[in-house]
């Protein structure tokens, strides 16, 4: 069984980069340590270089457990672009605060290796390994400021809840194996198809337990409790990583198990995930209204965003290939559209936080006067998160609504109704920040905002991307439309 090295080239490149980063960190001392950041960036760019040629291919290796198709390529590109963006907002933050830089970048890269594997995995065990590869470095990164009690608290909470959810998931996987005799996703789909309309409750329970493992990763209510505490305690770039990349990985895994393996039982998990979507977006938005800390606000907003992304899952129906396809495409489009502004919002937060430690909403007062560019960037990002023009967020919401209308049943309209209500609520707190930035006076004696050159460049690139994708949504929708997941799943 020959291994298709081209198919796993991006993962190999990141692995090599991770090891090099760790070694170089040994050699470098003092201020020079920060050079591992561009090194990691180069690794990410090379990985992108190896990913792009895979576009259009249908490769399969490791006995069919590892598949590279257009869907996987799109998600890998999303991960690698967000890796670059996170590296961009990490540089100064870690270089100036005397963190364990080499270790951080190593862990970050390892976590992204797991993410790259996720959309390609077609086996429950590989999915599990990928999930853990994403999570375990995350636990450590959350606690990277080890002398800070909050950081340790963040890590501990994240770890405990993570372990619990993984335990549940493994429990589910073992039962699933007992029922079906296989861990391959397509094999499970075949076996499940034979159960017909009256599966034993325990089988369904095992199915839901597996979903719960991913529910933790995407911070769906009620598996979201760790998220705000962990985001608030982690270093801000790590929070960005957890809120965006790690969540995307969770969705990639969830798409794989639900739309591929459990497709015959869509009638069970679709309403369950739909109801979770309603709870997730409603609770996330309502609690976000109350937040005063920007990180917590973004954390709850990202919980709510996960709810929007879950809506297409609620639309799925077994056997309805076109509806499922539209649902997956809507989710992938939303993920892609959500990545840029959300990392960008964390980036602005890093800029404001730098050298001043500011992180509450009041600290953004008068940002429009103190640093118009950052205020403009934050406004763009928040508008995009809310789904207003001229940002890509408008099309993201649009894609979800379109998928809902395509499904066209009552439950779909219920979901859309909650989407509408929540979009309006979300604007209250997004616009509150905008209002504070532009329409209130800065306090006396506020520290100046000094983002530094590379953070400004990264932010500018993210603003540019957010607006560009509004004008040319085809840049990603071409790709997401090609993610013919339901057909090319096996």
């Amino acid at each position, binding site marked *: 069984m020959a291994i298709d090295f081209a198919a796993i080239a991006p993962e190999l490149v990141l692995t090599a980069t991770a090891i090099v980063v760790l070694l170089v960190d040994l050699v470098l001392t003092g201020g020079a340590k920060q050079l591992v950041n561009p090194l990691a960036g180069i690794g990410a760019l090379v990985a992108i270089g190896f990913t792009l040629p895979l576009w259009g291919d249908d490769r399969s290796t490791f006995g069919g457990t590892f598949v590279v198709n257009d869907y996987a390529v799109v998600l890998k590109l999303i991960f690698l672009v967000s890796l670059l963006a996170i590296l961009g907002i990490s540089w100064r933050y870690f270089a100036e605060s005397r963190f364990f830089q080499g270790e951080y970048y190593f862990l970050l890269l390892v976590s992204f290796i797991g993410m790259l594997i996720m959309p390609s995995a077609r086996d429950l065990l590989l999915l599990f390994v990928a999930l853990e590869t994403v999570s375990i470095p995350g636990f450590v990164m959350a606690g990277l400021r080890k002398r800070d*009690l909050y950081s*340790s*608290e963040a890590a*501990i*909470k994240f770890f*405990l*809840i993570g372990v*619990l*959810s993984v335990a549940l998931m493994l429990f589910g996987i073992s039962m699933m194996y007992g029922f079906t005799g296989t861990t391959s996703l397509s094999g499970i789909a075949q076996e499940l198809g034979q159960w017909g309309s009256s599966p034993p*409750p325990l089988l*369904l*329970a095992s*199915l*839901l*337990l597996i979903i*719960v493992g991913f529910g*933790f990763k995407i911070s769906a209510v*009620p*598996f979201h*409790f760790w998220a705000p505490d962990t985001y608030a305690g982690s270093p801000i770039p790590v929070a960005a990583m957890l809120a965006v990349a790690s969540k995307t990985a969770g969705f990639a895994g969830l798409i794989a198990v639900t739309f591929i393996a459990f497709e015959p039982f869509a009638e*069970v*998990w679709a*309403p*369950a995930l739909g109801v*979770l979507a309603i709870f997730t977006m409603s*609770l996330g938005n*309502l*609690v976000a*209204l*109350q937040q005063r800390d920007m990180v917590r606000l973004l954390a709850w907003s990202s919980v709510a965003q996960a709810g929007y992304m879950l809506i297409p899952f609620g639309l799925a129906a077994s056997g309805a290939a076109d509806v499922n396809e*539209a649902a997956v*495409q*809507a989710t992938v*489009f939303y993920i892609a559209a959500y990545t840029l502004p959300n990392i960008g919002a964390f980036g602005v937060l890093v800029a404001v936080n730098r050298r001043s430690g500011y992180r509450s909403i009041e600290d953004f007062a008068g940002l429009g006067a103190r640093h118009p560019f950052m205020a403009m960037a934050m406004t763009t990002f928040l508008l995009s998160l809310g789904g*207003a*023009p001229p940002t890509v967020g*408008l099309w993201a*919401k*649009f*894609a979800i*609504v*379109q998928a809902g*209308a*395509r499904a066209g049943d009552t439950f779909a309209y219920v979901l*859309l109704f909650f989407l*509408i209500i929540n*979009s*309006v609520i979300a*604007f*209250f707190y997004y*616009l509150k920040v905008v*209002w504070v930035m*532009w*329409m209130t006076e800065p306090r006396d004696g506020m520290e100046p905002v000094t983002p530094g050159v590379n953070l400004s460049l990264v932010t500018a690139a993210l603003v540019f991307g957010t607006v560009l994708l509004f004008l*040319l*949504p*085809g840049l990603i*929708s071409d790709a*997401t*439309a090609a993610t013919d997941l339901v057909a090319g799943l096996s």
Partner: protein
Amino acid sequence: MEALNYAWLIVALPFVAAGVIAAFGRLMPLKGAEVGLAAIAIAWVVAVMIGYQTFVNGPVEAVEQVFWSAPLGGSVLIEFGQYVDGLTAMMLVLVTTVSFMVQLYSREYMHGEDRFTYFFAMLSLFTFSMLVLVVAPNTLQALVGWELVGVCSYLLIGYYWLEKTNSDAANKAFLTTKFGDIGLVVGIIVLSVGVSAHTDNVFSIRETTELAAAGMLSEPTIVLGCLLIFLGAMAKSGQMPLHVWLPDAMAGPTPVSALIHAATMVTAGVFLIARLYPVFAQSLAVMNTMAIVGTITLFFAGFVAIVQDDIKKVLAYSTISQLGYMVAALGVGGYTAGIFHLFTHGFFKALLFLGSGSLIHAIHSNNMSDMGGMRKFMPVTFWTFVVGSLALAGFPLTAGFFSKDEVLVSAQIWASNGAASGVSSTALTGNLVFWLGLAGAMVTTFYMGRSVFLIFFGTHRGVSAHTPEEVEAEVAAGTLDPQAEMEDLDQAAHDQDAVDDLSQQDVAAGHAGHGSDHDHGSGGHHLPHESGWQILTALVVLAVLSVPVGFLGGFLWDEVGGSTERNFETWTATHLLEEVSYPFLADAHPVDLEELHGGEAEGADADHAGDGAEEGEAAGISTDVTPLAAGADLVLATEAEGGEGEVDNHVLHGAPEFHLNVFVLALGGFLAAIALAWTIYGRSRPMRDPVLHMGGVTTLLENKYYFDDIGYRGVVVPVRDWLAPAASWSSNVILDGIVKNTGGAVKRLADVTYFTIDQKVIDGGINGGAFSAAWISSKLKRLQSGDVQRYAGAMLAGVIVLVVVFAAAR
């Protein structure tokens, strides 16, 4: 039809201008205003050319072009292009004219403002956004334009953003319209899903309207789609109860108000309904909804205008009321009447707003109680304002008279058609619109009369310390000390603050917004004086326009040299619209699309052959030469007078005719209302303004039927003060509490284990180790504050609920 191909130029010019002003405006001698004016002037010329071409050629074949497209997932394309027909041309003329006048006016009005350049860039951008919507060939481009209009209005309403009330107003406008926007988005998608069964180009306005007219869309699709789109239109076009943002939007600078109210923002909703009218016309439920919402709006908003003191608020509520007329007209089959009123209203409402701006500019107050006797000081403003008021009130031969008349006549026709077809609800809505429309016209006349008399007649009330007679005498004698006069003015305003809570913010806004920003805020120690030439030019041009535009679609068009074959209706109609009939009326039949397209081709040939073919049809429309279903043309040509037993089930009514009964009723109402206004306000401002002493009615009106309160107390406050904390609380307390007990039980179990096994089995020797473990645990416990247990408990509880509800319950 060459000019039609250049419609994109009208859209592009303001956009380029906005970019140039933003980039280089500060460096220019006129701070960027010259770029905006030049661009809009050229755009205006092109628009007028397009307007002329479409007008003289009757209903033209729409020019549809796609300039750029991008896939949007699946097989869906988003296309940007232009779709130019008579309706587009009418809007282009309206938007560019008003925008041109507003920009000219703003040169003077905004002179000396800090962000003058920014303001002009935003005006151009605002105009551009509306034009994107107007030329949209598909609903997605319309949506983009629609949203851009919303964002621009947010930025312009909040122009004086240092005032909290202003930014609040901007937020309110944005959120309210955003609420409707989501309805619009869903509505567009619902329609597109219906269309997708027949064609690939699912968002195309042309395809959507044709399919709907041919009866190929299912009833639920049309009803749901149209009602959702109507929700968007209600929010944008200020229909009750989503009108609450509109009066607050007065916080923006007055030229912006003029632009918003006359041409750009609020007309967007009505325009979109008109654009998709063949779809809306398919469903009786949708039509009735529009008629009822429109009627409620036109009737009740007018009353609120009566008790306002702020002149801009009077005009704001009158805009809402007039938008109600438009929507009601569309709801009772008055397609032409609705957009005709949109067209005429654009001119005279822009005029009125600019006129009120001229007054505010001179007085530094929005309040009519601070004005009075202004006709002596500002004669040009006075006369133009009177013209605008007469047009708004529907005085015979002004623009508003003809268009309002059309609305009422349409309602009558609708009622009689409904009666003849046995559809009782149309008879009901037709009569409702007719009678309440008449009553609303009286209300309009009354509050405009009140405003004109309070502002321009009587004596100047800027000086509260003196009696009016004294002031007059002093002014006459020229002995009034200008310095004292000014101080008194300020004092008056402050007294007003103390006593009049309602207008407090307005006065403050007026002072901060104008007093401090205008150069002569400090140098204006004199009596009010007439504005400069740029303001007056804009006023005079609009005043002159406010009369003749009405003749285009009025019954006197023949008499003044026009041709019945070329009136407003033939201008704004499309070939498709001529064929559309209401399926719920008798004898209706869906449009045959093949015939339509065949007919169009031949119609185009006929056009080339010359216009000679169009001899003789009484109310004929140019395509009568095409071989269409004969019955349709006959009905169209004979123009059902109503009540004759013959049902005109077509959207177009043909050329308007003179209806003596409507004329008499309208004129009678006008005279009665103006007489009443004169009796009360004609001489001087009454000490006891009767409209402010009507007990509960006044309270109700002054509180605007409590809509703001309902919106605020019923939606904003509960969400902010109750639901959000409750959610926060429930997640922290209830959920935690539930799981805490679970957690507590686990802990107890752990304790038991600890005390029995640990303490007894592994006793003594490792006490030191146990001690340090306890110390670490206490540290950890403090770190976690027990929360993680709860989190884990909550998670388990969630899993159990999921499993039980979704798996076992099956």
